[in-house]
């Protein structure tokens, strides 16, 4: 449980973290990172599917599932004139799920929602309507966390419905120093966020190899309040303009998000997943303070392959996966969308004879583009997700 404390200080440094409540994490469970994060129509049978609460209706009885993950990311930041490499490591998630009845399952998961870690050094900015300039040095830290309580129920043999209650909480700290003429003004702003959001999901098994799924994330308002201190240094003397002044600030709005997914198995060992999700950020009353938000489309496609069931050799039981993900982005910077595209490959390494497995995934992606005021991020990401099956624990006890 020591890992829990780490959630609140997840490290991810991106220049785009300046916007909104920071850069959003993609922390998917099980082998989802390997298949381009597609899987709205996948069941929570061998792992916890965090993409759709309805999947919990398909949990096997007597299985207690546990999932923990982390990522190592190497990013190259490129602007027109330079590039810089940064590595970072972060916790992805911690989750468990268990069947409540024969027809229903429940899960609790904790994961970071966003990271507002960024840094700006001595950025020269023009003073409007003048020939003069000022300089900004800024540092952002903190981020929001996501605590999900999900429940899925199976109606008959084919239909499951589910719901998630998400608690969003956390804070961001933004410290900026302005060098204006001969003075330095420092503004330290800590913004606290709290909000609740509901997600509804459904999955329907058309036949034993074909499932469709859908999710509706309900729009919500995350309440924001800030505590701000302003100090000014002039003539080498620091004077306080405002100290720990608490006030309300513009709330953060989360949009209606509608997702559809299909899952189809071919020849008993190849599975295809295809998802589409629309996020209506443009329809929220998002304040300009958070940036320019636009409607977002996400496409995800994935394949998994495993040779045979009940294989004798270990390597025959290993699953192989690949996927692609394309995302038009929700942010517009200087009228340019910050798009994101990636592909991924992965291995599902079974542990013992249970559903327990170690999922290793590698993905390469690009975010943003090189333009006047934009940068491109090229990233290599390795995800390690450990999915454990409770049956395994039981077995150890018996031994």
């Amino acid at each position: 449980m020591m890992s829990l404390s780490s959630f609140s200080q997840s490290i991810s440094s991106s220049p785009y973290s300046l916007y909104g409540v920071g850069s959003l994490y993609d922390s998917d469970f099980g082998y989802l990172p390997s298949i381009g994060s597609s899987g709205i129509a996948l069941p929570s049978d061998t792992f916890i599917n965090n993409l759709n609460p309805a999947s919990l209706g398909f949990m096997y009885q007597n299985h207690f599932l546990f999932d923990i993950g982390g990522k190592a990311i190497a990013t190259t930041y490129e602007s027109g004139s330079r590039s810089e490499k940064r590595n970072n490591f972060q916790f992805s998630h911690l989750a468990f799920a268990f069947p409540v009845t024969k027809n229903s399952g429940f899960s609790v998961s904790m994961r970071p929602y966003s990271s507002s870690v960024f840094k700006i050094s001595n950025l020269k900015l023009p003073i409007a309507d003048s020939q003069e300039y000022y300089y900004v040095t800024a540092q952002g830290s903190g981020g929001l966390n996501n605590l999900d309580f999900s429940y899925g129920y199976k109606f008959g043999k084919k239909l499951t419905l589910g719901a998630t209650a998400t608690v969003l909480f956390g804070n961001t700290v933004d410290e900026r120093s302005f060098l204006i003429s001969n003075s330095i003004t420092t503004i330290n702003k800590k913004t606290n966020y709290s909000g609740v959001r509901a997600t509804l999901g459904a999955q329907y098994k058309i036949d034993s190899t074909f499932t469709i799924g859908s999710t509706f994330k309900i729009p919500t308002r995350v309440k924001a309040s800030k505590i701000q201190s302003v100090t000014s240094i002039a003539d080498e003397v620091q004077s306080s303009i405002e100290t720990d002044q608490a006030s309300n600030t513009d709330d953060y709005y989360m949009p209606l998000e509608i997702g559809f997914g299909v899952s189809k198995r071919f020849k008993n060992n190849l599975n295809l997943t295809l998802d589409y999700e629309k996020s209506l950020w443009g329809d929220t009353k998002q304040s300009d303070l958070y940036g320019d938000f636009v409607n977002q489309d996400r496409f995800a496609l994935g394949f998994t392959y495993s040779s045979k069931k009940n294989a004798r050799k270990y390597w025959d039981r290993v699953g192989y996966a690949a996927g692609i993900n394309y995302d038009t982005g929700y942010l517009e910077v200087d009228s340019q969308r910050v798009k994101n595209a990636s592909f991924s490959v992965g291995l599902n390494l079974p542990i013992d004879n249970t559903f327990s497995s170690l999922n290793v995934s590698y993905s390469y992606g690009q975010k943003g583009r090189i333009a006047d005021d934009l940068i491109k991020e090229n990233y290599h990401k390795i995800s390690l997700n450990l999915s454990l099956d409770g049956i395994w624990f039981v077995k150890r006890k018996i031994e």
Partner: protein
Amino acid sequence: MHKFILILLFVLTIFSCGTDTDTGEFTVGSDYLALSNKVIMIDTVTVDMSTINFDSLATSNRSRILIGNYDDPIFGKVKSDSYFQLSTSVYALSSVGSDTESVNYVFDSISMILKYDRYYYGDTTRVQTFNIHRLTQKVKPNTEDNNFYNNSTLTYSPESLGTISFKPRPKEKDSINIQMSKEFGEALFQKIKKREVTDFDSFTEYLKGLVLVPENSTSSNVIGFSVSSSKVRLYYSKYQTDSETPFIIDFTILDATKQFNSISLNKTGTILQNLPISSSNLSSTLTNNQGFIQSGTGVACRVDFPNIKQFKNIAANGAIVDAELILKPVNNSYSEKYPLADSLTVYVGDNLNRISGTLVNAAGTSVYGKLNKKSDEFNENVGYSISVGNFLQKEMLKQSDSRSSLILTLPGIAQSVNRIVLGDQKHLNNKIQLKIYYISY
């Protein structure tokens, strides 16, 4: 398998700790960055300028004998008389052990030696004349504060005890020597010789003081002399001896508080002739968009910021983080003869020109106007820059309706006669500028 999990947790723990340093050189959306905290520079704020006249400047104890007069083309006729009381350490002739010997002393001469203190103003290539007169009134202040002022005067005898006409060379020469009246010297010598003057009291009873008065006919320059090293020297010697060794008695200004300069300005016919009393002011709109400062005579320039409180309306929360006031001397109002001072002294005053203190920065240190000498073809950049951010931020936040003004003078306000002409906001070539840097938060 336990091992496996432990290893995994271990790896993840490491993951959470390490990250590369971010040099912060990559930023996206500079327009967005400027959004939450707006930084603006405003240079269109109204600045009012006017000229005021302090009724009295304490000119005693200023270490300078300021004498002379000159006709200023802008300000009018400037004149400074210098009054002082003399004294010496021993009111007796040399080795007055026996009366027989003292009888043999005879008076030789008396002269006044004035040491240049290198201050001058006006045209030093022209001849200046001044006279020494004897005071008929003791050097004693009328006021409770024991000061003499630029408008203080004492009565003196019309008879001149000595006169000099000379071209001042304050930079090249060390001093000037004025031969004084033999009758005056002989009389003083006899008083001491006959022991009628034996101490300070009897001396000041006999010689109350002297005043140096410039002659009105030669109006050319004003010169400064040192109070501490200027003196009246009486020479005497032994009668009928071969020895040429002269004896001397030096009378000096031992008490600097008993020396003052009476500085006057005749503004008749000038642009400043309607300058009102000290609690009022003369707007620059009535003086060709100019403000005036003159040391010694109490003419000072006042600057007001009538709309500064409107800054509160720019944003819900905002601060003036810096501001620069640039005052420009009017072209052709200064020259080698009337050089620009290196700095301006800045005071904070109220609407009745009552000074509360010097302008201070956030650290409590006095702020001066610093001269930018970078001259160009039209002298557009010659100006005094004053940092007024701290002052204006306080003015903006002030709860009461009262506003403070800045009152500008030249350094050495009480012991010199330098002057300057500054342009106001509507002046054609030498506009006063105010740049205010403001941030919303």
